[in-house]
């Protein structure tokens, strides 16, 4: 049967083009892949290759024709034993040619409604919000509490998970022989050996990608960044390879991996080593973001992160590494991801923070109590998925909200919390949400300027009073 050659679309936006030149004439033999014509568009001149074999039976659109619509038959190819009389010549009517591109089609079947029509679409809730986070596991009465540093809690979490699952391994710069740049991996090499505790070269982009590849193959890497400042070198692998592959594969292939390390300002290390990446990572669907404050949360959530089948960003804080907290002495203390904690109950104002911000928030709550203001302090612990419910329930009670973060205000996590409070508790608010944050400058080196650039207890107290009209 004769085969029509159609006017091709040569770009996603092309609707018509000029048939500049025929390189074959009627009667010529055409092989698959032969260049048969040249087409001009507004952007370029392109060559048309034959996809079928046979004899060029008839040219339907002569060269020099302008504005030939995409999908118009431009020539007919005859197979073996066919001749030109078999051609029922279609009329050359470019204007009448029906556009082929689905997005240009007016016909929309019921099974394929246009995405642009929100009324026709019953939008399911985003995946992250679907699973209700569980309550913290009960710590049985009488459980012994052990005081330990955040550093020790993190180390214990990794060691316990490595004992439990042979697919878990730790890699990063100085994690093995040096025992960790901040000593978080102390003792792991001695217990698990150099097969599972791996010193990498200084090559963040490379080892982050290597870790993701190992994760795609089914291993469970814990990748330490010496600090998250250096993870900017690896951003493409974290976002494009780790976060998106499950979706792009239609659920077929995902990656269980933890990227962990200190985040945010340490002390006097200046702008390139003092950035808070909370809002950067919490922006991305496909990853979970955890930022604990206490040692107990650090342990319970790092164990949960390692077990989670998704990529998890685990933001630690260098200053908190040395802080001590009580940790329940249980064989397997695992906390739910995505569940905030009320660190201090109160009725007058809600203060929401996480990680290092919690130290300002809790001290501010003490100051406020002396002045008769009872602040409820919420430790988010997980930034994505964010526990909106706990925040909203608190604001419904207090009518006031202050967010505290070390990161910058623009597009920050505080901005996100303020938006959610507005969306879900607008009628309960007695004052606009106030944001305490790092100042809008790169981190300065001078001690006095650095102190000024970071949020302070006084900033939080002031903001809490302001929203309380005190």
């Amino acid at each position, binding site marked *: 049967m004769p085969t029509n050659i*159609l006017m*091709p*679309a040569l*770009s*996603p936006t092309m609707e018509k083009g000029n048939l500049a030149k025929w390189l074959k004439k009627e009667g010529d033999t055409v092989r*698959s*892949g032969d*260049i048969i014509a040249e087409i001009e568009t507004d*952007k*370029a001149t*392109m*060559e048309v*290759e034959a*996809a079928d074999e046979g004899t060029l039976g008839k040219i339907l659109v002569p060269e020099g024709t302008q504005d030939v619509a*995409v*999908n118009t038959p431009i020539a007919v190819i005859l197979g073996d034993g066919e001749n030109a009389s078999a051609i029922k010549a279609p009329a050359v009517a470019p204007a009448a040619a029906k556009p082929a*591109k*689905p997005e*240009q089609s007016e016909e929309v079947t019921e*099974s*394929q409604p246009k*995405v642009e029509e929100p009324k026709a679409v019953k*939008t*399911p*809730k985003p*995946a*992250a919000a679907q699973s209700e986070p569980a309550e913290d596991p009960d710590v049985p009465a009488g459980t012994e509490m052990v005081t330990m540093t955040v550093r020790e809690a993190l180390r214990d979490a990794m060691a316990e998970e490595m004992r439990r699952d042979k697919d878990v391994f730790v890699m990063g710069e100085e994690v093995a022989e040096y025992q960790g740049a901040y000593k978080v991996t102390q003792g792991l090499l001695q217990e698990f050996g150099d097969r599972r505790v791996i010193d*990498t*070269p200084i090559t963040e*982009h*490379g*080892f982050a*990608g*290597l*870790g*993701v*590849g*190992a994760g*795609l*193959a*089914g*291993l469970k890497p814990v990748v330490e960044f010496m600090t998250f400042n250096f993870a900017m070198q690896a951003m*493409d*692998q974290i976002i*494009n390879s780790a976060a998106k*592959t*499950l*979706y*792009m*594969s*239609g*659920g*077929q*292939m*995902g990656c269980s991996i933890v990227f962990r390390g200190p985040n945010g300002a340490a002390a006097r290390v200046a702008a390139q080593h003092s950035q808070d990446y909370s809002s950067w990572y919490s922006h991305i*669907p*496909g990853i*979970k973001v955890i930022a604990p404050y206490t040692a107990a949360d650090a342990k319970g959530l790092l164990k949960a992160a390692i077990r989670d*089948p*998704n990529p998890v960003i685990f933001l630690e804080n260098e200053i908190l590494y040395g802080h001590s907290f009580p940790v329940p002495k249980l064989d397997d203390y695992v906390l739910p991801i995505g569940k905030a904690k009320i660190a201090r109950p109160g009725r007058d104002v809600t203060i929401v923070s996480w990680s290092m911000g919690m130290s300002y928030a809790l001290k501010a709550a003490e100051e406020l109590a002396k002045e008769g203001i009872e602040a409820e302090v919420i430790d988010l612990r997980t930034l994505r998925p964010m526990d909106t419910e706990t925040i909203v329930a608190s604001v419904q009670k207090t009518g006031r909200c202050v967010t505290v973060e070390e990161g910058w205000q623009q597009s920050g996590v505080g901005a996100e919390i303020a938006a959610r409070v507005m969306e879900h508790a607008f009628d309960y608010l007695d004052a606009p949400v106030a944001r305490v944050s790092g100042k809008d400058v790169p981190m300065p080196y001078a001690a006095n300027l650095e102190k000024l650039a970071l949020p302070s207890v006084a900033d939080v107290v002031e903001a809490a009073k302001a929203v309380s009209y005190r």
Partner: protein
Amino acid sequence: MADAAVKDATATPITASQVPEFTKAQDIGAYRDMLTIRRFEEKAGQMYGMGLIGGFCHLYIGQEAVVVGMQMALKPGDQVITGYRDHGHMLACGMDPKGVMAELTGRSHGYSRGKGGSMHMFSVEKGFYGGHGIVAAQVPLGTGLAFANRYRGNDNVSITYFGDGAANQGQVYESFNMAELWKLPVIYVIENNRYAMGTASTRSSAETNLSRRGLSFKIPGEQVDGMDVRAVKAAGDKAVAWCRAGKGPYILEMLTYRYRGHSMSDPAKYRTREEVDEIRQHHDPIDMARHRIIEKKWASEDEVKKIDTEVRDRINAATEFATNDPEPDLSELFTDVYR
């Protein structure tokens, strides 16, 4: 030979006279597999022209001998990963043309259920790990697949493909370093088709012999006639044996050529038609295989034509399927973000 290879940075390449002959079954099988890719890609180009495939579409026409030859050197369990010019790799791995074409048309029975498109398809079953859209990002990932093999102590090999353009990305060398340092079983197959999009390798690369790019990492490498499927298979055998023996990574630079533009919207004005024609007429991997089959009387003209028809029918069936398969259900928008 290993030491010598490292010493002068390039292993002794297999010269034309040394190219081992294929058996009848190998030559006919390779012909069929290469033709399947060629016909699939021609059809994909046609479907793009009809508006049935959208976005980016990078065709593999001209380079078929590379993936088909390499695949002949592999065993089940080995892994394959590549960049965005990936349709040929998927078909060579044994993925169903129907599922690949349906993904190209963004339909519900595409390999990624319509959510990945041309550049993002995967098959755990066939050992195909994608399908990656950021130039060279697959190189650390493929090195990680090899890391997992070594960690588990199996003898699987990761075949990590990238192009002459990707060879200039920094993460490639970060990967080379770790792969040799940890003796990971990974074959870096550099598909040198001479152009990184529109930039000739002579205009982008200080060292255009890409098989030497492993020199400072002590990774042996060699240039291979990537238009001759037999040469590719022989080089693949050698590299796979090297990796399975625990000797670490190996670099194969495949000298190949893409007949079409970088993507569908590339008019390819940076090269002459004569250059393209010369390769097509004298070095086409499929024509050469066909001539061998006829010359050796392994099949008659009619028998070869029968293969051609079978291949064409298979691709037409895939096209038919991909045209009629429904688009994904709108509820799919929010699935597969987390598991």
